């Protein structure tokens, strides 16, 4: 029965994707991408992936829309026609769709408990999470402990993207010398929008609180560092939109943000090296305390904190890089 609702959502997804590709206004395409991500998050939730739904909603529908809008403010808003090889592209796309649809007939039935993906390693993780790590959220256990090395690589990817954007877009803000004209309203955020300012300032502490809740409850329910980083970054971006970018830089200056970006990855690596220094392997949390299970808890909380700090720092650095670029 639930699957029928899933099919309804899939139809909406396909319609939204078609609308995104066909719309000529890039602003409309970006907002439709936010709707697409939200529908995708609902679909993930129907398919029992609660953590992934939360991440897709926070990062795909929230942060990604802000980044695209920031880039749109610096480039043009309208697309100018399409390229010359449309027919060839349509042909390639149609043929590939038919081939992939033909290949899907070989896939195991949706929800089959005997499918190969449910056996082997996945079942081993589900069995051994209560014994070895003893936290309820199996996804956090696998992400933080069993596959902690992959998550370390992911933190480094986020870190690299952050410093990449800072290299590309930060060079000009160092030479900014214009005075902030008090009559120049767009520089001061949305100061003349009274209702969003009042409601926003009321809500920002609660958004922070929710971000902290998601960060530290990643062990017990859907949550974790990535979602929390996106939510806290969204709170600060809301403050920057309402009060102006200069105010937000006064609250969290760029130097602090750069410390956050590097500090989170450093914390993660430090936990791993501490495991080595205490006699275990790299990223072995069992040696961090006298009881191996308590050690696992400590390790997972510390690395999730590192992940959350880096994601917050990177998303805010990217936002400020885009926002500072437009003022020349």
């Amino acid at each position, binding site marked *: 029965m639930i699957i029928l609702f899933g099919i309804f959502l899939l139809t909406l997804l396909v319609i939204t994707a078609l609308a995104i590709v066909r719309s000529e206004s890039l602003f409309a395409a970006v907002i439709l991408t936010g709707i697409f991500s939200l529908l995708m998050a609902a679909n993930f939730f129907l398919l029992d992936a609660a953590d992934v739904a939360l991440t897709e909603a926070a990062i795909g529908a929230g942060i990604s829309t802000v980044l695209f809008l920031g880039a749109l403010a610096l480039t043009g808003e309208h697309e100018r026609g399409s390229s010359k090889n449309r027919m060839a592209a349509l042909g390639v796309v149609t043929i590939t769709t038919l081939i992939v649809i033909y290949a899907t007939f070989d896939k195991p039935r949706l929800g089959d408990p005997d499918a190969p993906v449910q056996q082997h390693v996945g079942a081993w993780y589900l069995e051994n999470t209560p014994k070895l790590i003893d936290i309820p959220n199996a996804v956090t256990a696998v992400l933080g402990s069993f596959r902690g090395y992959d998550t370390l690589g992911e933190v480094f990817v986020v870190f690299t993207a952050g410093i990449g954007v800072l290299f590309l877009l930060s060079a000009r803000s160092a030479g900014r010398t214009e005075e902030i004209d008090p009559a120049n309203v767009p520089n001061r955020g*949305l100061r003349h*929008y009274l*209702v969003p300012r009042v*409601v926003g300032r009321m*809500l920002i502490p609660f958004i922070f609180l929710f971000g902290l809740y998601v960060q530290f409850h990643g062990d017990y329910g859907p949550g974790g560092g990535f979602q929390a980083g996106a939510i806290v970054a969204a709170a600060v971006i809301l403050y920057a939109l309402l009060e102006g970018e200069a105010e937000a830089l006064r609250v969290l200056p760029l130097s602090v943000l750069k410390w956050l970006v590097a500090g989170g990855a450093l914390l993660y690596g430090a936990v791993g090296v501490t495991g080595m220094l205490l006699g275990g392997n790299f990223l072995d949390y069992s040696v961090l305390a006298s009881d191996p299970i308590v050690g696992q808890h400590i390790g997972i909380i510390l690395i999730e904190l590192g992940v959350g700090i880096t994601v917050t720092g990177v998303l805010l650095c990217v936002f400020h890089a885009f926002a500072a670029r437009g003022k020349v």
Partner: protein
Amino acid sequence: MALAIDILSWVLLSLGGVFVFIGGLGALRMPNLYTRIHAASLTDTMAAVLIIGGIMLQAGLTLATIKLAAILLFLLLTSPTASNALASAAILSGVQPDEGPIERGRTSR
């Protein structure tokens, strides 16, 4: 008793669905931006109250009900703010509200 709660929650959910439909229909068929914002805001407020009320009845007296009440409060605070911000942005960028009656047969200006 449980049956009464079930029926009541079904009624609330269906009514919420009807209001979502009305809001969506209004957002499509209204002639200009401001009337469309007004129609779409129906979805954020009336339909949200009815649907979340229906789900709260289904959840009974558990922690989930308190979380749903918090979500409802958050929605009721932010959605009208978003509509207000949208209308303010439209006024400040020059989209004029319509003046005078709408002639029969015109769907947009």
